[in-house]
Every structure is written in structure tokens, then in C-alpha cells.
């Protein structure tokens, strides 16, 4: 395979590292969730990419097509997306509750309040 043909994978890696970095480096809980989303998205792309078959079309039976893309990764990743949505929703819910309990969504601020008690 030629290098440009692999550009999807480069995107995957960049997204993955970006998301991961955001999760680790940001103290803001909302940004952490954003980072987590980016991180997960990279995996979605990874799966979708591997489902692609060169020259294949959408995997729907039709006259005149012989090669189809692999539908399985799409199905798998649909599940993963749902899981991702659930995680995000739950994460956001937690952030809302944290905001109500602490009055802030900054990690260091929360830490300070916990240490004080």
C-alpha cells in the first residue's frame, strides 16, 4: 500500500494522541470529557477504516457489484458509538452534579476543597 493510502491511520493516531493529551493535561472536567470523546472517535475511525475494501461499495446487494466493503466493523462501531454516547451522557451528568456540590468544575479547585474538609 502507498503512504497516502494510509492517511486514515495517521488521522487515527493524531486524534488518539490529541484526545489522550487533553484527558491527561486539562484540569477542567468538561474538557476532560471532550478529550475522552476525541479519543474514542479515533477508535471509531480506526474500525471504519479497516472495514474499507479497495474498490468495494456499500455492502448492500445490488446488480453489477462484486466487491463490497466489510460491514462488520461498522456494526461493531455502531455499538461502540452508543457506548460512547452513554459514557458522555453519564460523564456530563456527573459534572453537573459535581458543579452543584462543589460550585466548580476545575479539578485543582475540587482537590483544594476536599483537602480543606
Amino acid at each position, binding site marked *: 500500500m502507498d503512504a497516502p493510502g494510509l492517511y486514515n491511520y495517521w488521522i487515527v493516531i493524531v486524534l488518539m494522541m490529541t484526545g*489522550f493529551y487533553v*484527558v491527561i493535561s486539562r484540569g477542567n*472536567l468538561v474538557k*476532560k470529557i471532550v478529550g*475522552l470523546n476525541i*479519543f*474514542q472517535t479515533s*477508535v471509531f475511525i*480506526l*474500525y471504519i477504516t*479497516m472495514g474499507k475494501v479497495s474498490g468495494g461499495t456499500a455492502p448492500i446487494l445490488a446488480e453489477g457489484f462484486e466487491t463490497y466493503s466489510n460491514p462488520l*466493523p461498522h456494526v*461493531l462501531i455502531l*455499538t*461502540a458509538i452508543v*457506548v460512547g454516547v*452513554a*459514557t458522555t451522557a*453519564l*460523564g456530563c451528568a*456527573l*459534572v453537573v*452534579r*459535581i458543579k452543584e*456540590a*462543589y460550585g466548580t468544575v476545575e479539578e485543582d479547585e*475540587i482537590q483544594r476543597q*476536599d483537602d480543606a474538609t
Partner: protein
Amino acid sequence: MIATHLPALQIVVPLVSAPICLLLRRSGLAWALASIVSWAALACAALLLQQVLSSGPISYHLGGWAPPWGIEYRIDAVNGFVLLIVAAIGAVVMPYARVSVAHELPEEQHATFYTALLLCLTGLLGVTITGDAFNLFVFLEISSLSSYVLIALGRDRRALTAAFQYLVMGTIGATFIVIGVGLLYMVTGTLNMLDLAERLPPMSENRTVLAAFAFLTVGAGLKLALFPLHFWLPNAYAYAPSAVTAFLAATATKVSIYILLRFFFTVFGAANTLELGTLENLLIPLGVAAILVCSTVAIFQTDVKRMLAYSSVAQVGYIVLGIGFASTTGLTAAIVHLFNHAMTKGGLFLALGCVVLRLGSARLESLEGLGRRMPLTMFAFVLGGLSLIGVPLTAGFISKWMLVQAALEQDNRFLAAAVAAVILIGSLLAIVYIWRVVEVAYFRPAPEGDGEGEIAEAPLSMLIPTWFLIGASIYFGIDTSLTLGVAKRAAELLLGGGA
């Protein structure tokens, strides 16, 4: 007819009752349903294990699609045993939860609580039973998401931050596992574990396979609180509602360890990607570090729940050590300890739950004089503690015995002696942290001011489950034919590479 569909029922029954629980809304009804379902799950798991032991692995094709295309539920001695552990803990914790939850959560959250607990149970059972790598991820996320919810239900506001921290770490871990699975799928084109095991050997040099191995190891390591990746665990366990702590401590990490075992030995075991040397170099130092560091940290905790949480990380260290030896004895030790520790730590956390019910906290100094006021609870705690230490006639002793034996089997005599010494030193550290509690509970007078009558023994509905687990941790220290027998078969199966 039911017998042939047991694998599906094992998962589906708890799954279907979760939404029904949500619909019931009434606390008592939801609890009753959850309890009955958890007992059914236990019966199911016991029957499955018995079938496996008598007539070999069971394979169930979901939707009638034959593997490797369809999802396969596959039960052998390894996961049959883990299923039994998870279901047993579920069946013990559910009845216990009623009083504990009524005390710790507001009324309107009860139905949600039981729904989440049932979903968590479903997820954990699912992870264990499935023979499909991606399906494993899905179930893992079901259990994880519901456990985040359960932890966040804790009364302290720190439960929220703990749950959030766990959510971030858990999601990263699970995502790593998906990446690993994806990479394996890229090179082999299959998701069925047995099929993977067959297709991997020719690709042992393939870098994608190695990367997949790395992702899976780190991902599972995050979920099982492998030593340097354990930071989410103490907070999560310390602030979750008592029943949840007991349930998760006894099952969640154990199931993650099962994932590790399954991928290491069944999936990669046949391929030479897994050279024993690498496993040893990685897992043994981590296990040793976990035992020493976390046991020491546990000594300095002022909250008993947190202390036990750190102790859990240390105990995971023992199991990882056993896996690291990659010998029959080592794996037997790891699997036996998986069981024994689930019983012991579950019992200990349940006992603590009784304490929290009466005192409202598990801080060490608030336990003063509790040996007299709650004699049964504290005695259960002491017995559990002894098992944690590894005193003879308790389950902990059997684990330690097997582990030391596995350590001494190593070829490198110096390493063998050193590791054996570490295992025993870990026991000694356990004496220190358990005895801190014992001394406070038995040798300090009860604080002045509150009358003797105020703090009474916990209700029977909580004491019986507590004593059931503690009793089990004693019983399986004396009669080991079941635990050791099954564990040995499981270990041989894993090392036999698939089958």
C-alpha cells in the same frame, strides 16, 4: 430444554429484570425481584459449572449463528468458576442491600439502584461468559457504566469525583481493549477467541499483533487496578455505598483479571508472541511492587474502607504475581486466590457496611469500643482479617501456600526466595493494618456521651450475608477440594493453549 439454554439465561435473566426493576419503582418490589434474580443467576452458574466439570466445555451459539461468525458463549473450567464467583457474590449482596441501601440512599433512588446493580451483574457475567472479543468489550462497558452510576450514588460528595475519575480511567481502559481487539481483527479477520487462538501462531512476529497485545494488557491492567494504574480504585471503593463497595471489590477486579488471563493464555497462549520471559519481567515486578507499596499505604489510612481498598490493590498484586509465574502452580494459585479473595474481601466490606449502618462512617477512630457493641460484626471482621493475613484454616492461607510454592518452583533460586519472602512480608503488613482496627475496636473504651443502647448489633438481614461470606472464607480454607480442584483444572486448561 432449559438446560441447553442455560448460558443464554445466565445473562438474559438479569438483563431482562433490570428494566422491570425500573418499572416497578417501589423499593421493596425492586429489591425482591433483584434478589430472586440474583439467586437464579447463582443457581444457573452452579449448574453450568457442574456441567462443565462433568462433560467438558459448553458452547452456545447466540441467534443460531455458528462461530466464528456469530457470537459464541463458551464456558469452560476457567470462566465457569469465575461465573460462580460473580453470581455468588451477587446473590449474597442483594439480600444484604435492602437495609443498607434504605439507610444510605433516598427512597426514590432505590429502584435505580437495583436496576444499576442488576445491569452491573449482567455485564460482569457477560464479560465472563462470552467467547467473542468484541462482545466482551460491550459487556465490559455495560458493567462499567452501571458501576459508575452505583459509585456516584454514595452519600459523600467525593463519591461524585471518585466516580468521574473512575469513568475517565475506565473508559480509557475499555477503549484500549477495543483498540487491541480491532488490531487483532485487522490481522486475523475474526473476533472469536478460539478462532483467534488458531490464527495467531503464524503471525507471532507481526508487529500489529504485538501492539494489540500491548493495548490489551494495559487496558485490562487499568480495569483490574494493576499496581501503577490503580489510583482510581481507593476513592471509588471508599465513597461508594457499602453494598456497592462489597459487590465491586469482590467481582469487578476479579472479572478484569479473568480478561487478562483469557487474552494472555487462551488467545495469545498458543502463539509464541507470548514468551514467558516477557510476562515474568512485567508482571512479577508489578505484583511485588503492588504487594509492598499498597500494603504499606494501607497501614497509614484513617478510613477503614479506604484501607481495605488499598489492601485490595495489594491482593490483586498476589494474583498478578501468580499469573506472572505462568506455571500450573502459579495459575492455580492465582485462580484460587481470585476466589478466596472475593469471599474474604466481600465479607470484610459487608461487615464494614454493618458498621457504617450503625455509625454512619468507617473512620478508624469512630470504631472505638465496637468490639463490645457489635460483637458479631466485629468478630466477622476479625475472621476476615485473619483470612486476609493468611492464617491457617482460612482461605487466605491456601492462596499464600500455593503462591509461595509456585514462587519456589522458579528456576532462579535467588528470585524464588526473594519473591516468596515478599509474599510473606505482604502477610505481615496485613497483620499490621488489620490489627490497627482490632486494637481500636477491642481495646479502646466506647466514646462517652452516647448510651450503650444507641449502637446495637446490625440487623440479621445484613449479618447473615456477612457471615455467609466470612464462613465461606473459613470453609474453603479447610476443605479445598472444590476450589483447588477447579482452579487446577482451569490452570491446566489455560496453559494447554485454548481447548
